[in-house]
């Protein structure tokens, strides 16, 4: 995928001299650019739960975030580059969070701080808790812990800086905003009888139809056979050296993912076409 895009970017339909075809210039530009970007990450001043207290402690004098150029906590999403999701995301709070995320200008990053923001945390089973903010907005770095100590959070922030360092300006998969302009807003969830992800509307509708025929709505009893399937998958994954199975591909997430990927791809193609047309003029 990335190779393909790289090709497309270089394919400007202008004659390019052979010695300029390499992206040496872009790479060192990337490096300078990324260095300045990562050294002035402004986090959104925004705390959710207990982890926020540790985040404040990290920003305070003992651990001092300003050593990383991150002390400028902005209360407005319009001025911030980094959202530290510090704490339990509840369904009620999810709506404002997605809105805040949409309001942040790109390039923007999300750091999920603590078990809660990464995957639900100790309160995962609760009826009002979102099991992982990454089900709604893309997350760049996860920092486990409950709460992560300030040093663990700093470790996560350094990991984020490393990630930024690795983002080549030429790689549109890493940095979509350079190539194709701002990405789409994440659809804002709706508070209905329960939280409703607009991206899953189709699936919910199908399920509702099934429910009208007397089937259980949304619940799935995995048959015992499926358990062994998971196990097998696990065993296989183990051979490959990874720790645990990815979430078993459910029809739902496949649908959404495929649709999203398709949409993203289409957007990108359109934007590239636009860009090309602009360059031609």
């Amino acid at each position, binding site marked *: 995928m990335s190779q393909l895009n790289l090709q497309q970017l270089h394919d400007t339909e202008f004659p390019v001299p052979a010695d300029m075809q390499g992206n040496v210039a872009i790479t060192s530009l990337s490096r300078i650019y990324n260095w300045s970007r990562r050294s002035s990450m402004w986090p959104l001043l925004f705390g959710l739960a207990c982890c926020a207290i540790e985040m404040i402690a990290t920003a305070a004098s003992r*651990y001092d975030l300003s050593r990383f150029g991150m002390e400028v906590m902005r209360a407005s999403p319009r001025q911030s580059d980094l959202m530290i999701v510090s704490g339990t995301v509840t369904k009620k709070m999810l709506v404002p969070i997605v809105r805040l995320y949409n309001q942040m200008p790109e390039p923007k990053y999300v750091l999920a701080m603590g078990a809660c923001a990464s995957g639900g*945390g100790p309160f995962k089973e609760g009826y009002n808790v979102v099991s992982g903010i990454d089900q709604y907005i893309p997350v760049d770095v*996860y920092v486990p*812990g*409950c709460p992560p100590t300030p040093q663990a959070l*700093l470790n996560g922030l350094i990991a984020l800086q490393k990630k930024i360092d690795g983002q080549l300006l030429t790689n549109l998969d890493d940095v979509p905003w350079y190539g194709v302009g701002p990405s789409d807003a994440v659809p804002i969830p709706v508070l209905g009888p329960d939280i409703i992800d607009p991206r899953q509307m189709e699936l919910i509708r199908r399920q509702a139809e099934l429910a009208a025929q007397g089937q259980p709505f949304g619940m799935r009893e995995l048959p015992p056979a499926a358990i062994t399937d998971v196990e097998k998958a696990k*065993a296989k994954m*183990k051979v490959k050296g990874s720790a645990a199975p990815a979430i078993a591909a459910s029809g739902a997430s496949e649908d959404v993912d495929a649709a999203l990927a398709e949409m993203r791809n289409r957007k990108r193609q359109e934007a590239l076409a636009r860009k090309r047309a602009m360059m031609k003029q």
Partner: protein
Amino acid sequence: MYGMGILKGLGVTFKHFIRTYLDDIKYAGRKYLRQENFEARQGLKADGAFTVMYPEEKIAVPERFRFVPFLVVEDPDHPERPGEDWCTSCGICAKVCPPQCIWIVRGEDPVTKRPVPQPEAFFIDIDICMNCGYCAEFCPFDAIKMDHDYELASYDRTRNHIHDKERLSKPFSYWMSIAPTTAREEAAARGGWEHPDVIKEFKKSNRTPTPVTEDWQQAKMNAAAFVEAQKAAAQAAAAAPPAAETAPTVQSAPPAAESTPSGELSPEERKRRREEALARKKAKQEKAAE
């Protein structure tokens, strides 16, 4: 006079401001270089800036610090039970875990289907774990402990955040290195440096557990001496023809039984056997997992 209060307050701020520079003078520019200065900076006498220069310097966490748990296994160079789990898959930690983030598959003998005291699989979902430390506190075998490694940030949680047995297992020497005092207290409660079950077996076979008054490494040396003694005894009885290779015995059979096959046991041979046993164990695990 109006404004005095503000001035007084500003005085406090000013004092805070200059203290840091006074500190610099006091430590003669070596504030961040020397261990004693670090201790002074982080102690109660500290007045000026006391910033921890993470990642160049890190505050070591105290012994009782709790982060994600890990499983204690015997050291890989243990003469008798290299790499063996301390966990007996009794399930208490899974029961006592408040958010229920521990999953244990109890070991099972492939033939008799009887449970064996060893976990076949062990998972902790660190996206749920609340680092409460209950698992470590209530484990009757001191087999699960709270880790000190907090640097776990990752880019992908689906694959990194369910820790399986492989990832959880850390040798006993690691536990000794991060929490010597606690480990010693626990060993004293067990009555020796060895695993509680091993100690029980020792009592049956008249071997003495390594007392806590000794260094913990002594336990390994004792085991090595025991293996040597067994070997010598076997050599003495070498007249008898070597017995046929016994079928793989039940796992974690008493160590005494494991070293009964007589015959020449050169170091290489022992190493080979150990590797074989480990391979068998692994194969079994994989088989069971399928």
